[in-house]
């Protein structure tokens, strides 16, 4: 709308792992489909691209259809999703999506997930070979086949995986941490020790919902899902604060960010970048709005 196009794009020059960004606001993986948005909104979308870098949804080796619906449940001040990481698989991503994502006006970060170190190594090596991919994010919210625990919930299995994966790329390697763990700072420290260039948090909080009707059946096709949105912001802020105090590598903070003031809080807590997820569903241009509000706040306090 008028206001968005007339006012200049937000400018808060930021460097993250060697990438020069216009401002510190990016998207949370899996919460924005830039290719679909281009079809829906046309050129106005590219002209007003809402993020300073674009993070792809999670890519796996094999094609995934994702979970059966229903996949969404609205909660007090938030939502649960059980999308199930649908994606075209590595080959499909590289062939169909990468050329379009490479044409976006901002740097591309590709998020990958594998259930074994071998899978992750293959994914990371493949991304390393792509110039258009400027950084790689590992989604470690995936059950370790041995322990059953998420790889990212357990410092030991995360360290083990990273020892194998880290050598596969010279690109910035970001570890996307899970909040569903006893001490996320411990996990972040393990990631740093094993050569991660940055950590991103929080992913969604494990949650569930029952179908209306009263027989206790789960509503979600995936039975459980992940909670996001303002409801989790105070938990996310605590985890980002703890992690930023523990590690020296840059932190991407996210979880319920809706306004510039929230972004500022995560930055004050020690984050270098912030990511916006759920708020983009309510306001597709939220990234730009939040960056603008942040710029105004910084101007005031400066």
């Amino acid at each position: 709308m008028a206001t968005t196009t007339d006012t200049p794009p937000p400018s808060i020059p930021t460097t993250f792992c060697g990438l020069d960004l216009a401002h510190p606001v990016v998207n949370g993986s899996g919460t924005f489909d830039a290719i679909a948005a281009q079809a829906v909104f046309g050129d106005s979308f590219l002209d007003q691209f809402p993020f300073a870098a674009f993070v792809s949804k999670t890519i796996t080796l094999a094609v995934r259809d994702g979970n059966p619906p229903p996949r969404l449940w609205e909660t007090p001040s938030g939502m649960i999703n059980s999308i199930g990481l649908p994606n075209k698989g590595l080959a499909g991503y590289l062939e169909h999506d990468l050329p379009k994502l490479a044409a976006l006006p901002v740097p591309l970060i590709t998020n990958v997930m594998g259930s074994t170190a071998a899978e992750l190594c293959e994914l990371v090596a493949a991304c390393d070979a792509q110039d258009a991919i400027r950084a790689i994010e590992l989604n470690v919210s995936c059950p370790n086949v041995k322990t059953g625990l998420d790889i990212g919930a357990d410092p030991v299995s995360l360290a083990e995986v990273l020892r194998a994966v880290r050598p596969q790329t010279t690109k910035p390697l970001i570890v996307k941490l899970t909040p569903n763990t006893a001490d996320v700072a411990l996990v972040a420290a393990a990631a740093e020790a094993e050569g991660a260039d940055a950590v991103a948090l929080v992913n969604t909080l494990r949650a569930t919902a029952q179908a209306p009707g009263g027989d206790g059946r789960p509503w979600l096709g995936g039975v459980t899902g992940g909670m996001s949105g303002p409801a989790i912001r105070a938990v996310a802020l605590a985890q980002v604060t703890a992690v930023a105090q523990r590690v020296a590598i840059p932190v991407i903070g996210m979880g319920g960010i809706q306004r510039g003031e929230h972004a500022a809080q995560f930055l004050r807590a020690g984050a270098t970048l912030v990511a916006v997820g759920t708020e983009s569903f309510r306001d597709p241009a939220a990234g730009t709005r939040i960056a603008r509000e942040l710029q105004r706040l910084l101007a005031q306090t400066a």
Partner: protein
Amino acid sequence: MTVAPFGRRRAVLAAIRKVGSYHLLEVVDRHGPDPEPGQFYMLAATSGWGAGEDERPFLPRAFSAMGGRDGRLWFMLEDIGPGTHRLARLQKGEPLWVTGPLGHGFRIGTPPTPARRPILTGGGVGVPPLIFLSQALVEQGIAPTLQFGFRDTQHAAIAASFDTVQIATDDGSVGHHGLVTELLIRELDDDPHATVYACGPPGMLEAIRRICVEREVPAQLALESGMACGFGACFGCVVPLAAGGYARVCVDGPVLDATALDHVPAH
């Protein structure tokens, strides 16, 4: 497909009135293009959005355009939960967030003289896109067959203004006592050389899908699905495809060919 301006924008409620069980909203949307029949918008109040049952609504809600031109949009909704409850209480002059037009609408071949006669069959909150489509067809000199099914008189009231529409009610209080699909079968028995455009509750759509597939009558179904974003971002609104995999109702639909589905899911 009409392309939407990027982002949500502030529109203003020009008028709201209750017709039977439904609320009709007229919205002034200066910055938006005209929608096509079958396209929808994500709507939310700019204030008081989130203090209903269980602190909801949180996300915007999807509503089909019942019409739209020259910066005015029309919607019809039923108050069935916190989101529709809040929207039904918008005051004249009150601002609201709109994103859209979104999705792929009905396809009416160009030149707009379809080889097959259009039958527009639906019911409940599925009638707005059909009303929009029928107006578009009439403007193009085509007289479609309109068939609406409702629960009762209260719900059927919305159709009173249309003299040509065939009505069915579950309780027989208005028109045919029974299902609108019985009216559809009657029409197709008379003359199967038709294209069906349908929108309504899942059960009705599934029945229409079956009827049309059996008779090899082309049908376009406007689906509903729980949505978070409406523009392809969340992958939450999917329906399973006959060919396997899923389609996002918001960007691949909401209008899908009956043949693309092997069933219309309950939600």
